[in-house]
């Protein structure tokens, strides 16, 4: 409809668009500019062209952050998908027990990452953690879940799955609600067993939900920081250094603003392409 006065829409939008531009778009320009300088926040900065990018590439820091993030994300995404789906199928039923368990699982998604990270540090402590003690009690080898460079990244991934599985479950449950019961009845009449019913009715109907969970948890896992900062600080031997933590380390621990900015720019491009993918899926879901 026509605005009451011509300038009205611009006034209504001005605060939002100003803040969004200032805090979401301008930062990329600032990062692009800073990435061409060498600066430690204290002494005057010097222009060094693309050296920051070259250094990050040649010293393998960029590749390491990327590889770690990719490995972590692969485990988190597949874990969230599988566990979320299994939980949704298990708990898609009436009754107080199912409702209670649904709440319990989803509550982990609502509490702070800080609480979850600290709690699991205590549970998984290599000496006095109850998980370690229980594992030893049933005859499993004693593992240093967070101190072993081969294990730590996957420990972080499992903790993250524990936290976000409830979210995946909720999305799958919403998908299950949309399946008309007639379809199951028809399949049952055709003599389809549970496996065939899942393959021919449930899974096709849940594919959009699965795509949604996959992209969302991929984006979430690319942004992961809290678990790393609290549980491992990127160690041991950089084994758990995820992308965002690498940026944090460059600016706040190494005081290298230029390199942090260069990493930021690479990270921004990565995340934007991932989320653009998600937006396309979202649009597809709305259209159907």
């Amino acid at each position, binding site marked *: *409809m*026509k*605005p*009451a006065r011509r300038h*009205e*829409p611009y006034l*209504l*939008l001005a*605060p*939002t*668009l*100003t*803040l*969004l531009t200032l*805090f*979401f*778009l*301008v*930062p*990329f320009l600032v*990062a692009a500019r*800073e990435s061409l300088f060498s600066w430690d926040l204290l002494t005057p900065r010097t222009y060094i062209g693309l050296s920051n990018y070259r250094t990050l590439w040649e010293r393998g820091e960029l590749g390491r952050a990327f590889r770690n993030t990719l490995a972590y994300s692969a485990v988190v995404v597949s874990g969230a998908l599988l566990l979320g789906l299994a939980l949704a199928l*298990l*708990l898609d039923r009436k009754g107080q027990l199912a409702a*209670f*368990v649904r*709440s*319990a*699982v989803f*509550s982990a*998604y*609502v*509490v*702070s*990452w*800080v*609480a979850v990270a*600290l*709690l*699991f540090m*205590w549970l998984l402590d290599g000496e*006095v953690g*109850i998980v370690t*003690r229980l594992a030893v009690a049933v005859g499993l080898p004693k593992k240093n879940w967070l101190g072993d460079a081969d294990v730590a990244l996957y420990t972080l991934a499992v903790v993250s799955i524990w936290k976000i599985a409830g979210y995946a479950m*909720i999305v799958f*449950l919403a998908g299950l609600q949309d399946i008309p019961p007639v379809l199951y009845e028809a399949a049952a009449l055709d003599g389809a067993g549970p496996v065939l019913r899942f393959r021919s009715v449930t899974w096709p109907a849940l594919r959009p939900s699965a795509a949604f969970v996959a992209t969302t948890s991929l*984006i*979430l896992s690319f942004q992961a*920081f809290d678990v790393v*900062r*609290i549980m491992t600080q990127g160690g041991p031997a950089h084994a758990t250094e995820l992308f965002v933590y690498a*940026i944090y380390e460059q*600016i706040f621990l190494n005081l290298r603003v230029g390199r942090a*900015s260069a990493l*930021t720019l690479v990270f*921004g491009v990565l*995340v*934007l392409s991932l*989320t653009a993918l998600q*937006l396309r899926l979202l649009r597809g879901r709305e259209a159907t």
Partner: protein
Amino acid sequence: MKARLLVPSLVSLVVAAAWIGPYAWMVLTSLKTLPELLHDPTALLPKTWTLAAYREVWATVPMARYLLNTAVMAGLIAVLQIVLALPAGFALAKLDFAGRKTAFGLVLVCLLVPAQATFVPVFLMLGRVGLVNTLAALVLPFGASALGTFLVRQACLSIPDELIEAARLDGASDLHIVYRLLAPALRPTLVALFLLSFVFHWNDYFWPLVMTTDDRIRTVPVGIALLREQGTGVRWHLVMAGNVILSAPILAVFAIAQRHLVRAVATRGF
């Protein structure tokens, strides 16, 4: 028939244990004393149930200050987002003007940009104007919400034009229409937005960590995480007591508003 009902119930109980168990361990640990914890770290129950760990946390760190800071910050952000998203979402959904597509595109692009991709330059920008270590550094960057604007716009689409035109004929101003007519009509959306925003920023560790170093402006998640970093040896009963203080308010919100939160998360994505 009985087995078909029994098996899922048993598996459900195992699942419940996998999620409730860690919380239970957190609470039980927080009720123990340091000597008990050193003597037998995996004893199931505290020998003497005590709130000493909570008192010690309260005495060693300015917890009341942290709680106040966090509540003020999360509340301000949530309110500001709603106050700004309403007029913006209304304009994008209902009004014809040159540049509408561009403006909406800008909102969508910002929807894709996480704080982790902007914190370095925003830190530098805020540093230049002397705002690092202030409440403004915690609130302003989130004052406008691309997600909120998007959700309000979508919700506005279902409001009939006639309603707004009728109000205009009655002489209502734009601001009156936005805040007095639209706000009540969009209540479910605004409640969901407030809850998502408040819970997210109450829990947020990342932004307060990188934007503040000052104890006076510190928030609960940062303060609790520091409990583990400071101190001689890790006194887990204190850390777990802090964890309970951090999580209890959010779990209470969750218990009260679970339906809203679940629906918001299921439709929003994350």
